[in-house]
């Protein structure tokens, strides 16, 4: 039987594989080593740099938009001349161009920035190290998923240069508007097909890796919380993305083959009846879109929670409070995230019964989120906290995500949502979750794992400047959005609400938000300098500078770039966060170290 055939030691277990493929890895050429690499660490870094580029690019788009919102109709200074006559004649933004920027900001930030960074980069680099695996389960698939993502990015960027520019129908691409859109929308759909393919391949790879390549002794309840978060995230990607792929295919058919999946009968556009058979349903798109896009919110937030949990346990020098409760919560959260999607659709004429159902599930899903957040807060209690740069970012995450989560409650209840829907309140809410929430956590992760990647640590002073600058500016950007939103200002206005009487008292905030956004852009320069400078100039550190317990820290720093992360395959003896165990000689007990002999008192 299979079980008996397997020796206990994993290395000796597979003589047949090591003989069949046991050729020594020859020194790979530049292209195979750094460009078309199949090594999870290189792919992780490729994801990381590409995603950081897109985050910066997406943020630049919004910085340009914020000029128009703060000073409507005035010529953009300094860089206005860069743009073509069709988008910004004389440096003054046209409404069509504003819509392009808005749609592409959302798309780029979510699908090309945060998800690839949180899942593609951190997942690829950290998961195999944290579970003691030599690489991902399917290295070639891993490379394919990065390049599919890259192509998707190229298509999305390319769409700015087609006639009439990029997609203008918002990141949600609601039909019928999206169906009558210009060519940029077709590019958007094609780009999405690439990105979805990339995410699906990645999710398959992560799940197989976590299930199959765990080190011996690493049972599920000994996983670091980060691995749990990525496991659930991959499940969400795997099962929620395909319906959007289906919807994208149907919208492509509508646009290219003239079908009417999403077009109702008797549609009139600019006073002209459209030449279609009709009989389709715009609501169908919304269902299929939000079936993905709500779980997508948790795809954005769960890896962030995972990173924060790692850093908090490490810097409080004590185990996470309620590890088991957190694990069960994250599983429940993933499950529930599939049955709340229509709370995005309360004002589509939804009946009371079905709307009651979605309100109830929405209230239920807040419970596991609150459990996780509370557990993280309680983990701080009585700890001797080290205020390192990653810890500052992780601590910043907690209240920011709290604000984001709590402001979501009124949106999950139909009566209040009817007033708040499509106002700046919604923008404020989800940006608090994703920007000061997820992005702070991602920065935390970069500072935290940087020593593992390079063998050097990032500059602490610059890191602290980056933290305080970012968190202060973020609050000045997003807090006023609640004020404007409660006043009823719509999120889609090209002039920021100038023409509306009721918006006048809150218009002054536009300038505040814009200036904060630009200052935050400047603060990021500090981060970019720190990131690149520390590769050569950073302080050299040992392989476990944070004195952490999880497996990645037992690998050598900047591990070798060809399948194989550890000197010998690690074996796991204990749970992930055994800090300050009474009686031990040190205040941390790495997972791969056998039980310390506790002297009998």
């Amino acid at each position, binding site marked *: 039987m299979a079980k008996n055939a397997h020796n206990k030691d994993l290395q000796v277990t597979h003589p047949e*594989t090591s003989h069949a493929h046991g050729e020594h890895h020859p020194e790979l050429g530049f292209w195979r080593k750094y460009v078309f690499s199949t090594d999870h660490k290189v792919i992780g870094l490729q994801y990381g740099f590409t995603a950081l580029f897109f985050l910066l690019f997406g943020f630049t788009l919004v910085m340009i938009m914020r000029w128009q919102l703060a000073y409507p109709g005035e010529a953009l200074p300094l860089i206005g001349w860069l743009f073509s006559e069709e988008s910004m004649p004389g440096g003054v933004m046209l409404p069509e161009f504003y819509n392009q920027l808005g749609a592409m900001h959302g798309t780029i930030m979510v699908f090309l920035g945060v998800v690839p960074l949180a899942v593609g980069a951190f997942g690829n680099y950290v998961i195999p190290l944290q579970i003691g695996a030599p690489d991902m389960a399917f290295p070639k698939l891993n490379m394919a998923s990065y390049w599919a993502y890259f192509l998707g990015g190229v298509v999305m960027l390319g769409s700015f240069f087609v006639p009439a520019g990029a997609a203008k129908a918002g990141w949600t691409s609601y039909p019928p508007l999206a169906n009558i859109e210009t060519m940029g929308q077709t590019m958007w759909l094609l780009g999405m097909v690439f990105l979805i393919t990339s995410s699906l391949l990645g999710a398959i790879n992560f799940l197989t890796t976590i299930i199959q390549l765990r080190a011996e002794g690493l049972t599920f309840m000994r996983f670091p919380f980060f691995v749990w978060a990525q496991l659930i995230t991959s499940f969400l990607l795997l099962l929620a993305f395909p319906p959007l792929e289906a919807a994208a295919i149907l919208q492509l058919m509508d646009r290219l*083959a003239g079908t009417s999946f999403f077009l109702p009968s008797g549609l009139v556009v600019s006073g002209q009846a459209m030449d279609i058979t009709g*009989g*389709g349903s715009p609501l169908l798109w919304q269902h299929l879109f939000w079936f993905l896009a709500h779980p997508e919110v948790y795809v954005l937030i769960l890896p962030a929670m995972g990173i924060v949990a790692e850093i908090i346990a490490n810097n409080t020098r004590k185990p996470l409070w309620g590890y088991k409760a957190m694990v069960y919560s994250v599983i429940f959260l993933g499950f529930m995230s599939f049955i709340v999607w229509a709370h995005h659709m309360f004002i589509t004429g939804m009946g009371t019964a079905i709307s009651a159902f979605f309100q109830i599930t929405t209230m239920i899903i807040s419970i596991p989120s609150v459990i996780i957040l509370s557990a993280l807060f309680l983990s701080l209690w009585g700890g001797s906290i080290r205020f390192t740069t990653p810890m500052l970012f992780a601590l910043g995450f907690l209240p920011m995500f709290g604000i984001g989560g709590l402001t979501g409650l009124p949106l999950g209840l139909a009566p209040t949502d009817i007033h708040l829907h499509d106002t700046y309140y919604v923008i404020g809410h989800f940006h608090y979750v994703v920007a000061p929430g997820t992005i702070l956590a991602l920065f935390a992760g970069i500072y935290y794992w940087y020593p593992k990647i390079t063998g050097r640590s990032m500059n602490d002073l610059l890191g602290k400047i980056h933290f305080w600058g970012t968190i202060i500016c973020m609050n000045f950007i997003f807090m006023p959005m609640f004020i404007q939103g409660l006043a009823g200002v719509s999120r889609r206005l090209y002039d920021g609400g100038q023409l509306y009487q009721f918006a006048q008292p809150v218009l002054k905030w536009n300038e505040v938000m814009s200036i904060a956004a630009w200052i935050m852009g400047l603060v990021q320069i500090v981060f970019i300098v720190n990131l690149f400078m520390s590769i050569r100039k950073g302080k050299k550190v040992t392989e476990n500078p944070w004195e952490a317990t999880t497996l990645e820290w037992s690998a050598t720093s900047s591990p070798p770039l060809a399948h194989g992360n550890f000197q010998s395959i690690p074996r796991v003896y204990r749970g992930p966060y055994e800090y300050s165990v009474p009686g031990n000689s040190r205040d941390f007990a790495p997972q791969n170290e056998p039980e310390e002999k506790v002297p009998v008192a």
Partner: protein
Amino acid sequence: MDIPYTATARPDTGVYNAKVGIWLFLASEVMLFGGLFSAYIFLRIGAPAWPGMLGGQLYKTSFDVLNVPIGTFNTMILIASSVTIVMSWASLMMNDFKKYKRYMGLTILCGLAFLVVKAFEYNAKFSHGLFPADGNFLAIYFTLTGLHGLHVVGGIIVNSYFWGPGSKMWKTDPKRFTNRIEVAGLYWHFVDIVWIFLFPTIYLL
């Protein structure tokens, strides 16, 4: 250091890597076709008549639009190919490489035959002036069967690779090669299952 469990099963899960991978992939495929089927249901319950007006002509049942005998024939072909591919795997398990070649070859031929029949069906629609844009019934028919057809094409490419150049692995690593055939088979059976549901829901209802 090599990646473990490519050929043998991991003791505690009892499966090798690619099997977990292919089932995960199939899970996502279930959701992909699930999304399309839910679109079909959504549009159909909202339609006053089905198939209804197509290209200016009223059709009362799907029988009047689609050719049921040909669809039935194609169903049989696909079912037969499912048997041949599982037989090709069984042949490898019994160490009979020649038989494997024969059964895998038959599977590929069945796949091609399915596509040829499909092409004739499409052509018949086009020559009657029935295109995807002529009504939601046709839009559903062409999109769903078209996407299924693409899956068949993908399967044929993979199977041909394992029939031709990929079969060299039998000499160097027979266990892993047998696994590959099992995984290719799992995908092919899934494509068959999709058709098993597509055929009655589109052709017969």
